């Protein structure tokens, strides 16, 4: 099993979620995060005092999937989170040793 962590543009969440659900993905967890990277932030000026907004709002999607689905999910995210602009984000693949569904106590692939 792997955890796919994708950092994407917030306004792409709807598209990505839609596409994942269509492909049969049944669960995911999202978090509001802030990103720093090649995409430049902007300045807000309050009464002449410049506030540099370096950290840009992003959404982190976490999906735990069986190994065989990893490629598919990555592809979907890549396609639907894509705008071509700097700041589109990253996808990271992280190993997961086990998963448990609290409600049923199922373990492993059954659980996700």
């Amino acid at each position, binding site marked *: 099993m792997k955890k796919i962590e994708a950092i994407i543009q917030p306004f792409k969440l709807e598209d990505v979620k839609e596409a994942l659900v269509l492909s049969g993905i049944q669960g995911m967890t999202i978090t509001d995060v802030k990103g720093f990277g090649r995409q430049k932030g902007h300045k807000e*000026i*309050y*009464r*002449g*005092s410049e*506030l540099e907004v370096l950290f840009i709002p992003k959404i982190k999607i976490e999906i735990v999937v069986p190994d065989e689905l990893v490629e598919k999910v990555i592809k979907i995210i890549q396609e639907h989170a894509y705008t071509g602009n700097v700041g589109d984000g990253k996808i990271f693949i992280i190993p997961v040793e086990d998963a448990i569904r609290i409600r049923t106590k199922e373990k492993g692939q059954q659980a996700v």
Partner: protein
Amino acid sequence: MKRLISIFLLILMVLMLSTNLIFAEGETPQPQTQPKLDTGDTAWMIVATALVMLMTVPGLALFYGGLAKKKDVLNTIAMSFVTYCLASFLWVVYGYSLAFSGDIAGIIGQLDKAFLAGVKVDSLQGTIPEVLFSVFQLTFAAITVALISGAYIERMKFSAWVLFIILWMSLVYVPVAHWVWGGGFLAQMGALDFAGGTVVHINAGIAALMGVFILGKRKNTLLVPNNLTLVAIGAALLWFGWFGFNAGSAAASNGLAAQAFMNTNTATAVAALAWMFTEWMITKKPTVLGIASGMIAGLVAITPAAGFVNIVGSVIIGAVVGFLCYFSVTAMKPKLGYDDALDVFGIHGVAGIIGAILTGVFADPAINEAGKGLLYGNPGQLWTQTIAVLVTIVYTAIMTALIFLIIRIFMKIRVNEEEEIIGLDSSQHGERAYNL
């Protein structure tokens, strides 16, 4: 805290004793010609008083609170709230009497109306109840002190602020109010100040400036408004309440009050636009904070002029002040480098001075016989205005410094670095503004 109480009692006693001892032989209050109570005037003045109260609680508290950092918003609000409460109390104890009852050498009033002694339900001041006049004036005292807090936020100990309120109101506000409105020497000189440009705004602005020099800079001097919707509410309530402040200063429900109302509205609107367009030109973005800041600058500048100038005067005062205050805040402050957190000097001080001076230029005797400015053939007025401004500046600056010295004897004035970092809401009040 106990220290606070004992200090307060001490001050109270000293004040009472000293004034009574020194001035016991002062003349008795002048009998006033007492026309009948006018229910219309009274109705307006009751409402005007409530409106000015609303300026501090919650107007100013929200305006300042919204601009504070997230971790300091409650402390900022608390500073205004506690000021209004303390000022309310001190005013009836001795403030009103010392400012408005009798006169000793043009400098201070007497203590005979302490606890409103002798102010009966049917005592009149002009056509309105004297007790109403007293509470109307109370709201001015309160907001003046509260205004100062905006400069000091995000670093000052709450207990030090409480002590500051007591000292500054007693030693600065009350005397200056007496000089200008209570029959003191500035009143006798003929300085024009319809609703308190000098007493309220210059006074507060200079105290703010002096205070931040002594307090020193915050670790993080950036302006990071935690909630600009609060700023919008606060600025709007300030404008709304200011109608009571300015039109209420006619002390009657008449054409002059209406003119002051119209002038207030016009100058404020024009100043907001002037600030907005200036900013738009320079940074390419007109901001809500800019509009709100322009409003306040306009309100401050029209304050001394509201019952003296005509509509064209109002437009010009608004335009000038909206334009200039933008620079006093965005250019002068960074250049000079003082940490006036919410620009109390940059807005209230600067706009107050501009307003006081321009009143001497635009005062139109067709609006109010009592005022005749440069443009209407009376250049001397400009001089009188300047004197009044200078006297206030000098007195306030010195006294504010002195007051900080006194406070330092009793306690630390600033929170320590860690408390500043975690925020004053937590360190001073043990509360958090939002649990969202």
